[in-house]
């Protein structure tokens, strides 16, 4: 509970005493590259495989002459948009981006780089942390869209290549009974998760004390805590918005 209070104070300190907008523009851009572009490969890999495996397993579970084949891709679509792309990918995002943010800030803290910024009169919280959070909020939804596409693509490839489902059925299933609101819901989740993961990881890293060992502990905690936050938020959002 005390930790939560400090987290709120930390968030408050982000928005006071900012540097010029030009400075932020450059920093946010750099972070976007780190957070977004450099995650593309991992996201593509993981989501393509998950999409492929989901297709195979759904098909395996639906062997009934009463169920038309296009239901397979229909199920894959729903699962991808509602849960796989925004939530499962958030766990990957926490592992990759969250831990690196926390490790980065933790190292800067214990090697006094953050003090060096403060001495120069820079508000280190907003200078270092704000760009990371903004970049995550901007990039994570895009990554979610990207992984959604990869997952559906992976499903298509495996489904058609192995002959589980014909290309026409697959496409028909994707478009069958489509509710746009699921996409809105997924992107809302993505925004919230992007914010939660980046802010929690930065918070954990920023207040690291001690040495290299503690930097490692902080990174681990950053991932654990953000994963828990994501799961709780996932549940709450589903209750609220669906």
């Amino acid at each position: 509970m005390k930790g939560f209070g400090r987290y709120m104070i930390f968030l408050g300190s982000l928005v006071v005493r900012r540097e010029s907008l030009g400075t932020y523009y450059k920093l946010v851009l750099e972070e976007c590259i780190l957070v977004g572009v450099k995650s593309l490969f991992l996201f593509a890999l993981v989501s393509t495989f998950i999409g492929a495996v989901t297709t195979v397993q759904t098909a395996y579970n639906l062997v009934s002459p009463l169920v038309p084949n296009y239901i397979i891709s229909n199920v894959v679509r729903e699962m991808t948009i509602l849960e796989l792309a925004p939530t499962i990918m958030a766990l990957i995002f926490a592992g990759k981006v969250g831990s690196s943010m926390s490790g980065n800030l933790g190292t800067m803290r214990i090697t006094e780089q953050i003090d060096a910024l403060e001495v120069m009169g820079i508000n280190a919280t907003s200078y270092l942390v704000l760009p990371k959070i903004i970049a995550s909020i901007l990039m994570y939804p895009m990554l979610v869209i990207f992984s959604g596409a990869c997952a559906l693509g992976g499903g298509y490839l495996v489904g058609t290549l192995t002959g589980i489902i014909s290309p026409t059925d697959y496409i028909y299933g994707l478009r069958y009974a489509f509710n746009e609101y699921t996409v809105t819901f997924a992107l809302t989740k993505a925004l919230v998760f992007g914010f939660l993961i980046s802010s929690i990881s930065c918070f954990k890293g920023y207040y690291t004390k001690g040495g290299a060992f503690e930097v490692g502990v902080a990174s681990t905690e950053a991932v654990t805590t953000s994963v828990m936050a994501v799961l709780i938020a996932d549940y709450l959002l589903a209750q609220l918005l669906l």
Partner: protein
Amino acid sequence: MIEIQNISKSFEDKQIIHNISGIFEKGKTNLIIGASGTGKSVLLKSIVGLIQPDTGTVFYDGRNFTDADKEMKAEIRREIGMLFQGGALFDSKSVEQNVMFPLNILTKMSPTEKIDRVNFCLKRVGLENVNNKMPSEISGGMKKRVGIARAIVNNPNYLFCDEPNSGLDPQTSILIDELIKEITDDFEITTIVVTHDMNSVMGIGEKILFLFQGQKLWEGSKEEIMYSGVEELDNFVFTNKVMQSLKKK
């Protein structure tokens, strides 16, 4: 000149700094000495404002820094350069970008002016042709020098050094000490150096403040330090054999 009055600081319920007052003079290398863990770094950080002291006031040339408003604080901060114990170079930036960083943040110089100034400062600390190296590619002594170059790049009036020669060999230590002394003399700045190295004390200690368990027990110059008559200080000064033999004379 920097003046501190009645600085105290506790962490949780443990008091680290006990009511310290003192004056650090302009154009001199002022030393804060004492054994490990006596609160030297905490005192230094309280003076530059990285730690908010519980009580007490810090004056920079008569300007009250502790109770200053935002603008005043920013103005004084612009005049401060600080060298950290481990160098504290930004490890995602090259040597040149590190030294240039304060100029980018604090001044409106043109790019060529900045480059010239950076090269001047790097040359001043005896480093050339390392502009594009990353901090991980240079030695500890070089990091300290880059740290000094970054601390002096914006022409500070006040220079703070936390253990500038910890982790360096004796020869390099002397070079760094002399560099700090020269810079202090050349630019007429107020320099405060935290150290527990007796070589530094005897080399550059123009004004010395001795801390013991968070209290100021003695102040004076390097000429007077041998005859202080303060037991704790004698224990600190005469730890090594050479110094002990000096005392007997």
